[in-house]
Every structure is written in C-alpha cells, then in structure tokens.
C-alpha cells in the first residue's frame, strides 16, 4: 500500500517546537544554569515565528490547517511564551524552584495551544487540548512545598478532566449524527441533511460550549480559575491567563463558526447567557478581592465575557475584534503580572492589594507602569484596552446585539472600581513599609515590551486590527 508523504510545511513550526522542547528537556539533564534554557527557548521562538509566516496550507488529510486565523493565534502564543520566559527566571530563583523542566513544559503547553489553533479535526483539537492542559497542570503545581500550589494543580486537573469528558461526549454525539470529526465535513453534512433543527445537535453544541467555557474560564464554569491562579507560580498564572484562554477562543471560534456556522442562531442562545453571566460575576466578585492574583483571576474571567461578544456577533468584524482584543489582552495582562512578580521577594509575598499602598512614592516607575496596565484593563483611552473593547462592542452592535453591549459597558464601568482602586492606593496612600522590588533584566525587558505595546496599539490601533481582519478573511 503506497502512501504519499504528508506535506510537512504547514506543520513546520510545530515540528520545530517539538524538537526544541525535547532538546530543552535533554539539556536540562546536563546544564546547571537553568536560565540558559530560557534563553534557548527565546531563540527558538524567533525561528518559529519566522516559519509561521510561510506555513499556510492544509495537511494530514485535512486534519491540520495553517491559515491566517491560526497564525494570528500562534503569534499570540509566541508573545505569551516570550513574555512568560522573560518574567520567570528571577521568580524561580526567589521561590527556589529553578528547575529546567519549567521551560520544557511551557514549550509543550504552547505546542498544545498551536495544535488547537490549527486543528481542523476534533481529534487533533482534543489531543492538542490535552497536551496543553497536562503541561499546565504540572506547571501550576510546580511549587511542590507550597500547599496552595498543590491545591491549584489538583483543582485545575479535576475540573479540566471534567471538561475533557464533556468535550468527548459532545464529540461522540456529533460523530454519531454526522459520521465525521472533520469540522468542514460536519458543516457540510449539517446543511445537506437538514440537521439544523435537530435537538441532539443542540445538546452536542451545549457540551462543546461547556467544555470550551471551562478552558476560557467563563461563568458558570470558572470556579477553578481563582484558586488555580492564586496558587500557581505567578509567571505561570500570567501564562495560564493568556495562553489557554486564547487557545480556548481559537477552538471556540473555529468549531462554532466553521462546524456549526449554519446554526448560528441556535448556539448564540447558549453563548449569550454565558457571556452576560461571565461579565457580571467576574466583575462583581473582583470587587471584594484582597489578593491581587485572585483579583486578576476574576478580571480575566470578565475579559473572557467581553471577548465572547465577538464570537456571538459571528461576523468577520466580530472575529477579528476577538483576535485583536486577545492580542492586546496578552500584553496588558502579562504586564500587570510582571509588576506582581516584582513585588515578590524572599519571605514577602507582596500579593495583598494593600501592599500597593504608596508604591507611587517608593517606586514611581513600577507604579506608573501598573497605572498604564490598570487603565488599559479598565479600557480608558488612550490605552490599547480601550481600542480593543471599542472594536469588540462596535462589532456586536453592528451584528444587532445592542442590549448585550449596554450590559457589557455597564459592567465595564463597575470594573473601573477595582482596577482604579489599585491606582488610588498607589498614589493617594502613604507607604506602610518600604517594599523592595525584585527586578531583573528579563522583567525589565518584558515590561518595556508590554508597556510600549499597550500604549502604541492604543494610539495607533489600525495596524494590529488590519492584521486581525486579514487573518479572518481566509477563515
């Protein structure tokens, strides 16, 4: 039986990623200075990003597709990886968990995300999701001597396994109905065989929505997020709050708009309450948090709610604004976490919101950077967060969902309270004690990149948006 060699050009970035991850794992055994591994992964990201740009195509019998949509998401994953690796080494030393597996596992998790973004078949999607999730569970429990880190890992694992089971249930239903797991074939079968009004299709879509909601931490499937974010090592919290969420949105978009594109009115009924609840619960519960990591966890839940609006709109403008927002969100969120990491020194957690009192007097630069990120997360012009939200809300209004946008703006206004409270504490309060900042060149570079991205995209938003719009044309 002669078999044609599969076209490997579309998967080249993934292959290089696999190779680099394996090399890092082996290098860990011999290299004593673990920062070298971080440096190696930074170089590889450069190579992979270069390969990404020339990787368009479909391969492995239509199971894997590399198009503008997947490439845009993969660039977000690359940014996420680079920023995470930059902010990690100092933290790992401070926490005395400086092990080389850390870098290999972040690479494996990113590889899983890349597979998810490119999956055109539910089987590849599921395996990519498991690869990402498994690596992230281990990373969340990386501080083995810390009870909270263990708790984070176990909660994330249990609820993640639950989400996987639900995803498989949904897959089995859709396979039973259509006899295929390929997303395009599912779409064709649904339209040609009049399955559109089938209740079982609806149940299957509910299962998919639930499983992906777990991954993007949307209410009511968000319970794991605050505990997992609080307990995980802070750079991993930053990594988790962007990477798996972006990957979740990538598959959510592809499954719902490609496979279930013809029954959009049906699934928007499922997603609208999820989006509204997510914005409401995320923002309201963030108000009462005293731990900054938990507050940012609830804030990341709320941001998932905003981004769901773009998916619900379902138009090219909606999808591109989700891509655009995810890109901006990656920078502003990791930037905020970088500040949180700087406050952590040996023997001082620096995770209490009250620790930020008077930071404007003791460390004006750090406070100013935090101010930029908080403004951006709130959505105050001229920061990038404002433009992101603006395009999202505009696309939803143009798609006819004005009332949801009104709700979103309302909750967005509520969110100003807890973001700006930190700014208020930094500038209007007297410092309780002198806090030492735990800086490093890596964190400095990450902060420089994130802050310039947040401000530049805020002032000149057209460039990224144009890229995002171009990305969804081939979708």
């Amino acid at each position, binding site marked *: 039986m002669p078999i044609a060699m599969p076209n490997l050009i579309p998967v080249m970035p993934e292959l290089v990623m696999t190779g680099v991850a394996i090399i890092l794992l082996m290098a860990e*055994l011999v290299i004593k200075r673990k920062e070298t591994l971080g440096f190696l992964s930074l170089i590889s990201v450069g190579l992979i990003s270069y390969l990404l740009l020339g990787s368009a195509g479909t391969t492995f019998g239509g199971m894997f597709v590399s198009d503008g949509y997947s490439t845009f998401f993969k660039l977000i994953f690359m940014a996420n990886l680079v920023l995470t690796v930059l902010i990690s080494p100092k933290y790992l030393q401070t926490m005395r968990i400086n092990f080389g597996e850390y870098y290999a596992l972040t690479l494996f998790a990113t590889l899983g995300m890349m597979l998810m973004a490119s999956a055109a078949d539910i089987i590849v999607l599921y395996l990519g999701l498991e690869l990402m999730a498994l690596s992230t569970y281990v990373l969340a429990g990386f501080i083995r001597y810390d009870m909270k880190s263990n708790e984070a890992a176990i909660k994330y694992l249990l609820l993640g396994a639950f989400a996987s089971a639900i995803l498989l249930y949904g897959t089995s239903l859709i396979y039973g109905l259509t006899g295929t797991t390929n997303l395009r074939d599912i779409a064709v079968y649904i339209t040609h065989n009049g399955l559109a009004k089938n209740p079982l299709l609806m149940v299957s879509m509910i299962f998919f929505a639930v499983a992906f909601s777990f991954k993007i931490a949307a209410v009511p499937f968000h319970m794991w997020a605050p505990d997992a974010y609080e307990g995980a090592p802070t750079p991993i919290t930053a990594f988790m709050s962007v990477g798996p969420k972006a990957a979740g949105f990538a598959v959510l978009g592809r499954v719902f708009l490609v496979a279930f594109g013809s029954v959009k009115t049906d699934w928007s009924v499922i997603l609208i309450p999820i989006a509204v609840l997510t914005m409401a619960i995320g923002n309201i519960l963030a108000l009462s948090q005293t731990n900054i990591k938990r507050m940012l966890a609830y804030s990341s839940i709320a941001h998932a709610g905003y981004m769901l609006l773009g998916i619900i709109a379902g138009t090219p403008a909606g999808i591109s604004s989700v891509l655009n927002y995810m890109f901006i969100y990656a920078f502003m969120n990791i930037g905020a976490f970088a500040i949180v990491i700087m406050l952590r020194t040996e023997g001082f957690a620096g995770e209490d919101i009250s620790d930020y009192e008077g930071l404007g007097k003791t460390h004006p630069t750090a406070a100013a950077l935090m101010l930029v990120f908080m403004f951006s997360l709130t959505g105050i012009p001229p920061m990038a967060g404002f433009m992101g939200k603006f395009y999202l809300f505009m696309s939803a209004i143009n798609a006819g969902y004005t009332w949801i946008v009104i709700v979103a703006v309302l909750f967005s206004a509520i969110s100003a309270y807890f973001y700006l409270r930190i700014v208020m504490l930094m500038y209007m309060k007297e410092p309780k004690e002198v806090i030492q900042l735990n800086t490093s060149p890596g964190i400095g570079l990450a902060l420089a990149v994130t802050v310039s991205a947040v401000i530049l995209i805020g002032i000149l938003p057209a460039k990224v948006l144009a890229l995002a719009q171009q990305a969804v044309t081939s979708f």
Partner: protein
Amino acid sequence: MPSEYLGVLIFLMVATAFSIGALVLGEFFRLRRPYAEKLMPYESGNIPVGEPHMRFSVKFYIIAMLFVVFDVEAVFLYPWAVVFDKIGLYAFVEMVIFIVILFVGYIYAWRKEAFVWD
C-alpha cells in the same frame, strides 16, 4: 455481537457461579469455633503490630505511572505489528518517531533517577 465469544461467556458464567457457589456452600457446611487468637489477623504467627492502613511511599506512584505510560506505548505496537507488512517503510518511520519521543522520556526519567529506590 460476535457469536464466537459464546464459549468465553459460558466459561465466565461457570467460573463466576463456581466461585460464588463455593463461598456460599462453605458458609453452610464449615465448622465455626472461634476464639480470640483464631480471630486475630495472621502475620506469620507473630502478634500483629500497628495499623493495617499503612501509608505507602510516593515512590510506588512514580513506578506505577511510568508503567502505565510504557504500557500504553506497548499497546500501540500491537496494531502496528499486524499491519506492518501492508504499510511498510512508512509505518516503520512513524513508529520510530513515536518510540524516539518516548525514549526521550525514558532517558529523562532514568537520568532523574526515577528508577532508583532509596
């Protein structure tokens, strides 16, 4: 339903009936004259010490986990071996990739002394 497994089914039913039957019958016919020493759990004739609920070392877990992973690897070899003559070199290459990736895991575990019991 593959009917060729009917024999297996009958065998299973007979085996289950026999083992349960032996226990139930034994309950009726055996003598029961208990006294304190006889009711003690048997530990090679010694007086039992400590709790039966003993916590195992976490080392067992890692051995079991590695066993599962390499067990699953072996599982993939069965269908591969069966179709190897039909697919040929192509199948060989993909299995080599698969095994090399897992071999990396093996080297890693070995160098991290996961197989050392101390």
